[in-house]
């Protein structure tokens, strides 16, 4: 065999060496198994583009058979889950603003009277259409089920009301995103996704790199305090994060014409909590990862569920309950509601707070773990 020929034994030596190294790096090996499993679970079980059981509130002054029929038909469709009655229209508005309900069904006082007179009474349904994908299938089903459900009740003398136009005038009001433009939902959400990516991955890498290259030891031998190093390393990335946000905001306005009803300064302020959450994750990862590759993999492990379970790509309420619970832990989930609430719904501080404190709790828990780990790695 000549020297230049492909040598099977040399080739096999490389293959064997790769496998040995792969086995040594437990974390990488775990990720190679873990990430497909995670993807399988998320895509296979959690994601559903036909969201059902959407929380719905009802306002009704008409307690007739007809309104009961409509409500029960909606419930049977499985798209709507009635979680209660709103006391007033203002009350219903708050529920929509805070994102507690997806729909409000308003059955006016003289609904059954008008129905029997053949006057085609209004049935008003308000939908939180910030994410058109979340309401679309439910709305499509609604149109159908209102007329068919009443067919059974409209018998005998009133049967002639089942005319072509239908017995009821269904008025659908798509709140916050009337035309159902997907970009209105995606572009503000992108802010959260980009921040998650930058903050988690970059901080995890930046700190791991300092340790991997030995420069951390040098820094710690100087009078610098670990907190000075940490804060000093983090601040530049916060600045970068804000630049990214501004870029997206400008693009959202100029390119996509996303409405901006709420206060931008409020958004920028509350964003700090979200940034802190991601930095905490990044720092914690950097205390666990032994090299930059591991830091990268761990960030990916966090990033994947953040994108898929937060309601960024797929409607949050379309997911099974367990996935919603997991999603509720992630800061991105709450930030998406926060940013969409401020921009599209014009939410102020009061309506936004319910989305802020879960992020705060996340920061506290992850920070505690991070600081504990950081202390250990020092000695």
């Amino acid at each position, binding site marked *: 065999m000549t020297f230049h020929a492909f040598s099977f034994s040399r080739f096999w030596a490389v293959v064997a060496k790769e496998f040995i190294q792969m086995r040594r790096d437990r974390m990488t090996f775990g990720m190679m198994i873990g990430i497909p499993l995670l993807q399988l679970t998320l895509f296979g079980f959690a994601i559903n583009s036909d969201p059902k059981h959407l929380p719905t509130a009802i306002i009704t002054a008409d307690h007739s058979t007809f309104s009961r029929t409509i409500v029960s038909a909606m419930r049977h469709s499985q798209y709507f889950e009635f979680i209660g009655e709103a006391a007033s229209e203002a009350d219903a508005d708050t529920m929509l603003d805070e994102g507690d309900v997806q729909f409000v069904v308003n059955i006016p006082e003289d609904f059954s009277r008008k129905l029997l007179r053949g006057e085609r009474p209004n049935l008003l349904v308000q939908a939180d259409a910030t994410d058109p994908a979340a309401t679309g299938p439910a709305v499509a089903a609604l149109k159908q089920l209102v007329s068919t459900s009443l067919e059974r009740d409209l018998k005998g003398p009133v049967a002639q009301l089942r005319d072509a136009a239908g017995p009821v005038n269904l008025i659908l009001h798509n709140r916050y995103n009337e035309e159902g433009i997907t970009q209105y939902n995606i572009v503000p959400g992108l802010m959260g996704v980009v921040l998650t990516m930058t903050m988690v991955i970059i901080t995890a890498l930046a700190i791991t790199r300092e340790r991997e*290259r*030995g*420069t951390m*030891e*040098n*820094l*710690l*031998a*100087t*009078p*610098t305090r670990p907190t000075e190093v940490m804060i000093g390393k983090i601040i530049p990335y916060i600045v970068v994060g804000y630049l990214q946000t501004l870029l997206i905001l400008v693009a959202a306005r100029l390119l996509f014409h996303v409405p901006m009803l709420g206060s931008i300064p409020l958004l920028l302020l509350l964003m700090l909590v979200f940034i802190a959450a991601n930095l905490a994750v990044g720092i914690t990862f950097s205390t666990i990862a032994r090299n930059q590759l591991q830091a990268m993999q761990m960030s990916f492990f966090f990033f994947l569920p953040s994108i898929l379970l937060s309601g960024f790509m797929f409607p949050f309420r379309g997911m099974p309950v367990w996935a919603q619970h997991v999603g509720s832990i992630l800061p991105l989930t709450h930030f998406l509601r926060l940013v969409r609430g401020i921009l599209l719904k014009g939410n102020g501080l009061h309506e936004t707070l319910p989305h802020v404190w879960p992020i705060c709790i996340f920061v506290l828990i992850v920070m505690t773990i991070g600081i504990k780990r950081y202390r250990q790695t020092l*000695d």
Partner: protein
Amino acid sequence: MKNGELVIDVEGITKRFGTHTVVNNIAMQVRRGEIYGFLGPNGSGKTTFLRMLCGLLRADSGSGRCLGYDIRHESDAIKREVGYMTQKFSYYEDLNLQENLDFIARIYGVPKRKEVVRASLEKLGLYARRKQLAGELSGGWKQRLALAASLIHSPQLLLLDEPTAGVDPKARRDFWDEIHQLAADGLTVLITTHYMDEAERCHRLAYIAYGNLLAKGTVDEVVRSAALSTWAVSGPDLHELAASLRELDGVEQVVPFGNTLHVNGRDAEQLRKAIQPFQREPYRWRQAESGLEDVFISLMDTAEDNFK
């Protein structure tokens, strides 16, 4: 602090990682302006000891003062006056020379920073290369940069952890000339090394193995205290002779040095008797001085016996 005053004066320094004792009950006194060599096999606890001196690690027990400060409780004050050059190059490869020095000068809050950095670059002959990225430097230049950086805040004590590993002989000699000059100006230097020629350039030495301090003093004192008896033998087929000699009681080391073999043992009388049958033609024997290396290897073997 005047020359001759104790800059490092510690005793009973012990550090454990888990159940493993890395540094065991070490005492050390180093005077101002002294170049103190710190020797020992790999993994003997030298780096750990240095890290405890400069406050990177906290000793589990032991006490003492470094630059007049308590090493257990005043590590912040110590850090300000100590320059520490790590074993591995630990400056930023993606910053240029000037940026690296400027960064370290800022960390220490050096007054008149720009001038100090400039002077430091000029002094070490790095000024022309100040815009070069540290990562592009060769080993020798990296070492010069690291030295310049560890001196930027005019420390009182310089801790050097194997500073000349992988550096060519000329650069190594320049480096030592620089260290001697600094020591003459009153800087105290504690240096770890594996090179015997470097050990001999130190004012005083300490030898540590498996966390234990086995010998200390000047080169002569260390060699004398080891009381090692050494013979040099030359002749044909030294390889076979060496094999037979190694079998003998009383012979500790048989080391080839070119065309001669160095044979040594701690018990001079036993060694003399052991080699007697071989003191015949065609071999020529003479008594030789024990070298530092012989002493250290002997110490290491003893230590291995005792601490295994």
